[in-house]
C-alpha cells in the first residue's frame, strides 16, 4: 500500500522540468587564482623558486575543475498547493531537484509580507533532492509566494549557478469565521426559505391552532386541544421564508495596522455574514462604496458565495477614483424588504449619507463601525491633541446623527458575534418598511 506522502512525492517527481544552468565563477575560484598568481609572481620577483610551492595546490584545484565538466542542465519540480485558500490556512510547497554532477544544491524561499513559511521536511542525499515548506498566509489578497531561489554549486565549489523559479499566484480569501447566527426578521417577503415567519404556511415550526375547516388534513388535527374544547382544532405552522441581506462595504479609506485594518475587518465581516446567510439559503448581495461603485445583486447559493468572495477581493485594488453613491444602484440590487448591513469606519460623510438615503427609502439598517484605532498624534503636541479631540467629536457627531435616524450602530473589532446587533436592528425595523 502506498501512503499519501509517497504518492505525492512520485507525482512531483514526474513533473520535473529541465532548466539550463549558467555557471559563473565563485569567490573561491578568484581567490585561488589570486594565491597562485601571487605565489608565481613572488617566486619570479624574489628569484626563489620554492615560493612557487604555494601556487601548486590552487593550480591543481583549478586544473581538475574545468568549466567543460560542469553539468549544463538541472531538472526541477515545484508545486504549490492549494492555490486558493482562506486566511491562516496552510499551503504546501514541494521542491524536487535532480542535479547530478553538482557539489551542493541550496534553496531559498522568498515569502511576501504577512506570510509565514517554515521548512517542513527535507531529504538530502537522495535523487532528486526534496524539500517541503509549510506556507501560511495571514492576510487575504492575491499575491505570489516565492520565487524559490535554487543555487547549484559545482566544480569543487569553483562555479555556481542561480535559478529563480517563480510560483503561481495564490488567492487568499478573507477568513469570515462565524461572525453571526442567521437571524432574520419575523416578517419576510413571500419567498421560500428556512426562516420561520409570522405568516402561516407549511413549515415545521408550530404557530398555533384554529378550528377545523373544510379541506384541512386529518393529520394536522390537534387531538389534545380538540378534546379539551369539544370541537376539532388543527395545528398551524409558520411559513418558512428566505431573507435578503445586502452588505454595503465602505472601502474608501483603510486605517489601522495591516491585518486588522478597517478594510481587513470589513471584508472579513462581509465574508462571514455572506457565508452564514447563504448557508441557510438566504439571498445575499453586496455593494462596495468608495473607489468605483461595485455591486452584486442578491442571490442565493454556493455560486453567489464564490462571487461575493471574488468581489471583496477586488476592493483593495480600488484607488482614489470616486464612484457614485447608493442612489446610483439599479433597483434590483436593493430589493424591497431587504435588510442592509453597512460596514464602515465612519471616517467620512459618505457612510452617513448612505445611511440617511437607505433609511429614507425604508430599509432596515445596521451600521457596523470597523475602526479599532485612533490617529497617531505626536507626543507632547498640543495641536495634535486638539486635532484628536476634534476628530473624536466629529465621530461622536456621526454617531449622534445615526441615532437620530434610528439606525443601530455596533462597534466591531473583529472578535465578537454580530448576531445580537443584527437581531436588535431587525426588531427596530419600522412596521411600514417591512415587506
Amino acid at each position, binding site marked *: 500500500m502506498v501512503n499519501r506522502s509517497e504518492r505525492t512525492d512520485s507525482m512531483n517527481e514526474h513533473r520535473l522540468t529541465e532548466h539550463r544552468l549558467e555557471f559563473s565563477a*565563485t*569567490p*573561491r575560484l*578568484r*581567490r*585561488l587564482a*589570486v*594565491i597562485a598568481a*601571487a*605565489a608565481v609572481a*613572488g617566486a619570479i620577483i*624574489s628569484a*626563489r*623558486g*620554492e*615560493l*612557487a*610551492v*604555494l601556487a*601548486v*595546490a*590552487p593550480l*591543481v*584545484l583549478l*586544473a*581538475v*575543475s*574545468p568549466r*567543460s*565538466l*560542469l*553539468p*549544463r542542465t538541472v531538472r526541477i519540480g515545484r508545486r504549490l498547493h492549494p492555490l486558493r485558500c482562506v486566511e491562516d490556512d496552510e499551503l504546501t510547497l514541494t*521542491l524536487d*531537484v535532480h*542535479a547530478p*554532477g*553538482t*557539489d*551542493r*544544491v*541550496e*534553496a*531559498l*524561499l522568498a515569502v511576501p509580507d504577512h506570510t509565514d*513559511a*517554515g*521548512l*517542513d*521536511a*527535507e531529504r*538530502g*542525499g*537522495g535523487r532528486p*533532492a*526534496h*524539500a517541503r515548506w509549510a506556507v501560511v498566509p495571514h492576510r487575504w489578497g492575491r499575491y505570489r509566494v516565492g520565487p524559490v531561489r535554487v*543555487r547549484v554549486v559545482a566544480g*569543487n*565549489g569553483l562555479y555556481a549557478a542561480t535559478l529563480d523559479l517563480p510560483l503561481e499566484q495564490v488567492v487568499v480569501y478573507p477568513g469570515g469565521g462565524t461572525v453571526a447566527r442567521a437571524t432574520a426578521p419575523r416578517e419576510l417577503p413571500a419567498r421560500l426559505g428556512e426562516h420561520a415567519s409570522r405568516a402561516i404556511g407549511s413549515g415545521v415550526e408550530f404557530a398555533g391552532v384554529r378550528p377545523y375547516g373544510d379541506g384541512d388534513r386529518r393529520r394536522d388535527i390537534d387531538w389534545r386541544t380538540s378534546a379539551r374544547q369539544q370541537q376539532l382544532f388543527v395545528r398551524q405552522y409558520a411559513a418558512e421564508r428566505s431573507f435578503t441581506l445586502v452588505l454595503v462595504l465602505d472601502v474608501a479609506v483603510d486605517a489601522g495596522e495591516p491585518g486588522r485594518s478597517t478594510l481587513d475587518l470589513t471584508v472579513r465581516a462581509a465574508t462571514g455574514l455572506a457565508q452564514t446567510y447563504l448557508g441557510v439559503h438566504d439571498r445575499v448581495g453586496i455593494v462596495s462604496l468608495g473607489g468605483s461603485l461595485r455591486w452584486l445583486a442578491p442571490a442565493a447559493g454556493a455560486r453567489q458565495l464564490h462571487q461575493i468572495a471574488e468581489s471583496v477581493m477586488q476592493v483593495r485594488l480600488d484607488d482614489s477614483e470616486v464612484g457614485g453613491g447608493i442612489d446610483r444602484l439599479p433597483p434590483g440590487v436593493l430589493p424591497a424588504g431587504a435588510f442592509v448591513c453597512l460596514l464602515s469606519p465612519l471616517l467620512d460623510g459618505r457612510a452617513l449619507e448612505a445611511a440617511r438615503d437607505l433609511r429614507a427609502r425604508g430599509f432596515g439598517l445596521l451600521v457596523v463601525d470597523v475602526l479599532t484605532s485612533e490617529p497617531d498624534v505626536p507626543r507632547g503636541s498640543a495641536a495634535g491633541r486638539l486635532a484628536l479631540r476634534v476628530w473624536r467629536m466629529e465621530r461622536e457627531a456621526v454617531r449622534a446623527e445615526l441615532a437620530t435616524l434610528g439606525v443601530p450602530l455596533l462597534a466591531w473589532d473583529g472578535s465578537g458575534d454580530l448576531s445580537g446587533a443584527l437581531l436588535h436592528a431587525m426588531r427596530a425595523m419600522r412596521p411600514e418598511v417591512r415587506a
Partner: protein
Amino acid sequence: MTAEVSVAHGGATVLAMAVTAGAGLAACALTLLAEERPVRTVGIVAAVAVGAAVLSGWRWLGSAATLATTAAVLLAAAISDDVGPGHLVVASVLLLVLVAGLDRVERPGRSAGSVVLNRTRLPRRAGVPVLAVVATAGVAVTATAPVVPSAGLVLLGLAAGLGALLVATRST
C-alpha cells in the same frame, strides 16, 4: 523542525567561523618565524583582516584577507631563511582551509532560511584538496631535494605534464 534546523544551521556557522579564523590566524602566525619587522607587520595586518572578514562576513574583506595572508607568507618565505618549503606546504593547507571557510561565513553564503538540499559526501569533497596538498608536498620535496637530471626524470616530467593537460581539457 524549523527551529531544530535553524539551531543546527547556526551551530555549523559558528564552527565554520572558528575554523576559518583559526586557519587564517595560523597562516599569519608563520610570519612570527621571521625576525624582520616588515614581515611581522604584514602578518599582523593580515591577521586583523582575517578576524574582521570572519566577523563581518563582507566578501571584499574576505578577498583582502586572503591576499594579505598570502602576501605575508610569501614575504616571510622570501625574506627569512627560517621559513622553508615545509612551512609553505603547511601555509598552503591553511590557505585552502581559509578560502573554503570564507565561502561558508560570508553573508551571501549564509543567507537566512536557505536550505541545503543536496551535498556530495565528505570523502568525495575532500579528494581533490587532498590531491592538491599531496602535489604541493611533492613539489616542496622536489624543491629541496638535490635532483640529478636524467632521461627517466625528463620522461616523468613529460608524463606529468601530459596528464595535467588531459585533466584540464577533458569534457563531459
